[in-house]
């Protein structure tokens, strides 16, 4: 018997599967944090999770609401100051994977979390850069996870906060970036990966029951699909159980703490 599941659960599970054991992973709050902790509780028990608040090797029992919840501090292997985090650990080159969310993304996996519209008189003022620009340029490899909609997958982006593959091709290398950059974008509809030459995001997986049309309709540019477009393996019962337990514990704790 296989459980029913939501598209949001599918996204988190698909994202969690991208991580490998013993990797050192710099985790963004929200979707990346849920996926990374699911991975830690299932397939990659020895993954090292790092949050920019200075918590290294953290093992939260519940998902943090913010990047600096007490839960992260209390379960961390070590705590360092924020300058040390950015100097020694991130810029120091010790992080394998940077796991980011995004407000907007373009076809080259560039991320905008700063403004929509003109910088000086924006239509929407977003929170800003935070740690993301240097996460995207200092980690050996980047994963991105966000919901796929026409509002978030945009053709023209007014601001690049965190560089993906810039204008494609070798533009990232030419800008002086030596790491791999984004290697996958995991959404509620499927998985996108950069084409090895053009570096444009190509849909390589659709989640079960998601159609090509759905993916196309939820993308602001003319989305390309891989020739061997695959279906993401279904969530296992174990993945769903662990994720739901985690979410339940989180909800219970947040109600209790109020």
């Amino acid at each position, binding site marked *: 018997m296989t459980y029913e599941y939501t598209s949001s659960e599918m996204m988190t599970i698909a994202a969690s599967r991208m991580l490998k054991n013993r990797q050192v992973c710099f985790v963004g709050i929200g979707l990346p944090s849920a996926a990374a902790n699911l991975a830690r509780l299932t397939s990659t028990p020895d993954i090292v999770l790092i949050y920019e608040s200075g918590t290294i090797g953290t093992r939260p029992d519940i998902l943090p609401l913010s990047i600096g919840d007490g839960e992260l501090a209390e379960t961390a292997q070590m705590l360092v100051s924020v300058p040390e985090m950015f100097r020694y650990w991130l810029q120091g080159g010790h992080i394998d994977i940077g796991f980011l969310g995004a407000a907007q993304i373009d076809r080259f996996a560039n991320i905008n979390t700063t403004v929509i519209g003109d910088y000086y008189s924006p239509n929407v003022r977003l929170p800003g850069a935070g740690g993301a620009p240097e996460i995207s*340029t200092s980690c050996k490899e980047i994963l991105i996870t966000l919901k796929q909609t026409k509002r978030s997958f945009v053709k023209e982006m007014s601001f690049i906060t*965190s560089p993906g593959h810039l204008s494609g091709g070798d533009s990232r290398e030419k800008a002086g970036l030596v790491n791999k950059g984004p290697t996958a974008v995991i959404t509620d509809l499927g998985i996108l990966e950069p084409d090895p030459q053009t570096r444009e995001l190509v849909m390589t997986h659709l989640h079960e029951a998601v159609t090509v049309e759905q993916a196309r309709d939820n993308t602001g540019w003319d989305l390309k699909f891989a020739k061997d477009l695959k279906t993401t393996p279904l969530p296992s019962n174990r993945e769903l159980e662990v994720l739901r337990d985690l979410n339940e514990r989180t909800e219970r704790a947040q109600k209790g703490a109020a």
Partner: protein
Amino acid sequence: MAKLMTLKAAISELVDDGDSVALEGFTHLIPFAAGHEIIRQCKKDLTLIRMTPDLIYDQLIGMGCAKKMIFSWGGNPGVGSLHRFRDAVEHHWPHPLEIEEHAHADMANAYEAGASNLPFATLRAYIGCDLPKYNSTIKEIECPFTGEKLAAVPSIRPDLTVIHAQQADREGNVFLWGITGVQKQAVLAAKKVIVTVEEVVENFEPSANQTVIPGWVIDAVCEVPGGAFPSYAQGYNSRTNAFYQEWDAISRDRETFQRWMEVHVLGTRDFAEFRKSIPLNGKGVAA
């Protein structure tokens, strides 16, 4: 030398209109009580500095205390936007807010350079990022040995830094632990320093990951139990996530915000009264 005094006296003596002020805290130990007292005393034209301006900066901005904000991530953590900040940037309410925007790596290094009494910090940053187009304080510097081009940013030297910590002793030595953010750097980079603490203790028991800030680099220490609410002080209280979630509704509308500030901040004498004015019936917030 640190003097033990009331928060009211400390803000009155040490905050001048027009000062650059860093109320630092990284989710943990955010000096809310001090922010409220700045609002109560109607300080004006402040340049607010902080990596992660959150609700207390939203309140300061909405109440018209700020001329400028220097920051690297301005949101309600885990919830969404800071509506008063957005309203100031998008619609210039209550008046225009100048912004100087950085990334975390930049500000963390700029505080570090400030604490080190250096005029600038060097870091590998901003490659492929549009921010430097809109922030002329971000420059380029060349390594004299390798020729590599790196980012140079001016150090942060606030007129005043305010932090909240768990404990101080009678000499004004301050102890904090848990997530320590950039607080030590912000303190050492500043001309004047106020520290609010959960508790003044006779003797401090050293704990893992403790940070000690000696009294001789601090101007005022003020005992304000729970002074980081709705943020938290590890070992003393927990983060009141519900307040962060409900702030979204309170702050979204100008009038609701103003009424709330009048009742709960301007209408109370201190942080203890503020806390009492908010019924904590399992949800945390009154409207």
